[in-house]
């Protein structure tokens, strides 16, 4: 199974790279406050479906890349992503059988936790950001989650058909 997983990593990597691109696309000021956390959403999905291949280690590395791309403190997104992937893997069997609404509620909670970790680290490091600004991505992230789910499920089905 692990070798088959290794062969079919490319689509997953491409989806994560695409999510990273969505994170750095320039946006107008008002819209940037509501930019969903594409990388977090993508990683939640892959950790839920393929917890053995896409575990905390890969989340940590992707978090470091996100830190450099966004110019935040090195390790901030790495820690937050690593932690939410850990939570997702802990509950991945439950999340797989959840109905849509319940899954969306879970994703909302995970995204809120993610933003809270970022907020906390910013607070300790003395980066001055109004607390209200953290809620935008949580709400929009939950709203776009069904679409992320559909797109990534399509990728997964195609990969498994290819096997």
């Amino acid at each position: 199974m692990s070798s088959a997983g290794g062969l079919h990593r490319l689509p997953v990597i491409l989806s994560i790279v695409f999510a990273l691109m969505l994170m750095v696309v320039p946006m107008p000021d008002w819209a940037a406050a509501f930019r969903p956390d594409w990388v977090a959403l993508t990683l939640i999905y892959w950790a839920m479906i393929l917890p053995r291949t896409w575990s905390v280690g890969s989340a940590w590395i992707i978090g470091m890349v996100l830190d450099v791309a966004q110019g935040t403190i090195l390790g901030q997104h790495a820690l937050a992503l690593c932690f939410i992937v850990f939570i997702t893997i802990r509950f991945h069997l439950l999340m797989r059988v959840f109905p849509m609404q319940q899954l969306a509620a879970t994703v909302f909670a995970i995204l809120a936790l993610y933003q809270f970790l970022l907020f906390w680290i910013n607070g300790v490091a003395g980066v001055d950001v109004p607390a209200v600004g953290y809620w935008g991505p949580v709400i929009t992230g939950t709203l776009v989650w069904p679409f992320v789910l559909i797109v990534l499920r399509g990728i997964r089905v195609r990969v498994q058909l290819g096997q």
Partner: protein
Amino acid sequence: MVNSRASSSNPARIPALGIRVLLLMAASILLMVLDHRQNHLDALRKAIGAAVYPIQIVVDAPFRLWEWLREGTSDRGELRLEVSRLQAERLLTNARLQRLSALEAENARLRELLEARSQVRDEIRVAEIMAVDANPYRHNIVIDIGEREGAYDGQAIVDASGVVGQIIKTGLTTSQAMLISDPSHSLPVEVNRNGLRTIASGTGEFGRLDLPFITNNADIRPGDLLVTSGLGGAFPAGYPVAVVDTVNRIPQEPFADVTAVPAASLDQVREVMLIWSSTANLQDKEEPADE
């Protein structure tokens, strides 16, 4: 398929997940402390930055293509209008330039009299903005000039109408810069009219700077131009920063409430200019001699 599902839903959990999470989180905290306290991790950041560079290029490509298409397809009338506008502008600029060269000569003469080193001429290079920080409260941008072209930490960035910000981290081919409107940015300025020195701090809004340390009886009024004083060492002197917008004198408070509007249009630029001021140039030239 059935087999793989059965094996992945096996209650035997992913081995040592908890320990791995704890180790990785401890590593992140260590990295954050190192990165925040001292800038020890520049090399690591640059290495990862080089890996991210292709992503930024791909993201930037549609914008470049759009610009290119727009330039290529703008019709003749528009082009003629623009040419005539540019000619008029050039005439105006030339007229100003004539005065500037006279002033520069006079300034050099006076400085010679004072036996001070002339610092009027700065070297300038155009850079393009590649990305903006996703966090709207941190006004950071990424520009396409890095160490390879000679950019350095603390280098001043201006646009056609005023100061934009300064470089905070250099990569090999890109640099990260902080805008003057960032809440954690301050720069020393002086009022052009009377030389009153003060500090202009960012507020997190593109269109507003705060001047927190103006006493109630200071001579400042709306419309005053603020220019860099050059006293902090980072910015060369004499570049316009902002225009004073409101002055609100509060009798009980020690300082008046003064706000200013940045001269540069911080949220609309795509091209900026990097300044190598003459003092920094001297430092650059001295360094190789030491090695």
